[in-house]
């Protein structure tokens, strides 16, 4: 008998898998981007089933709400209708690519199946809404004690990116893109 949690996992996994497959199969890049948005939201749901509420919200805000908006805006800005060939050419190389990905996937699945078959079930957690906030506070105190150096490095990285991205978009002149 499936519990609610199991049902949610299978539902979200199906959504994530199908939209993930859509990302690589859709011909129009805009469709790829919207498929990826659905995939990101599905993964945020997966995080919630794993009790990572804050990370799920960050996933929504950063990935679905910021990164993918940038992707969609760039694709709309450079209206790529003229790009007809979505996939790379070559039958032999195509077979090789599929084969190598299949081998990798098979190895990963077999490894997971053999290694983590001891007791893969999760320990139960309290189903109390307060629990999510407690976890968030624990994450936060870890972030600002053990990982405080990484946190500051992220600050530096973001500063560098902010300067670099603006400088990059400046070169080759002109503030307007031909569409």
């Amino acid at each position, binding site marked *: 008998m499936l519990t*609610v*949690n199991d049902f*949610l996992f299978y*539902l979200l996994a199906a959504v994530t898998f199908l939209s993930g497959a859509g990302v690589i199969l859709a011909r129009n890049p805009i469709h790829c981007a919207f498929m990826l948005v659905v995939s990101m939201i599905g993964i945020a*749901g997966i995080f*919630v*089933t794993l009790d990572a509420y*804050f990370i799920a919200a*960050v996933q929504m*805000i*950063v990935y679905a*709400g*910021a*990164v993918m*908006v*940038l992707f969609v*805006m*760039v694709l709309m*800005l450079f209206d790529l209708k003229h790009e007809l060939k979505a996939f790379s050419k070559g039958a032999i190389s195509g077979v090789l690519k599929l084969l190598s990905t299949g081998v990798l996937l098979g190895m990963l699945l077999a490894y997971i199946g053999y290694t983590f078959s001891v007791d893969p079930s999760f320990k139960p957690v309290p*189903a109390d*809404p307060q629990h999510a*906030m407690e976890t*968030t*506070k624990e*994450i*936060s*105190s870890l*972030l*600002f004690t053990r990982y*405080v150096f990484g*946190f*500051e490095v*992220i*600050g*530096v990285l*973001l*500063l560098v*990116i*902010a*300067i670099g*991205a*603006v400088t990059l*978009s400046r070169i080759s002149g002109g*503030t*307007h*893109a*031909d*569409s």
Partner: protein
Amino acid sequence: MSALLAILTFALIVTAIGAGLVWLSSIAGPKVRKTSAKVMPYECGLPGQEAKDTKISIKFYLTAILFIIFDIEIIFMYPWAVTYFDFMKEGLGGYILGAMGVFILLFVVGLIWEVKSKALDWN
């Protein structure tokens, strides 16, 4: 966990009612033959022009990039904000203030640089 189920149910309700209303309006609306003038993009009644070199300012995309960067910096302030008082109660107020002080300083430097480099000017 059940909250997630509730969210999905609610999203389903909203989508169903919204899509139902759109469908209902397509049922209730008149069925008129499409004419070429009707399905043309609306450009104030003039014949549509598909100019080859429509210029769209890359400012939009630059704004989106800067949005990502500052959004992440703000997201890092959220866990800090909720534990700020807890750290102070443990006597680590100066430490946590300093840790975020450096981060905010980097934020401010980035913001000042963007303003000075005119990346945020729109005219």
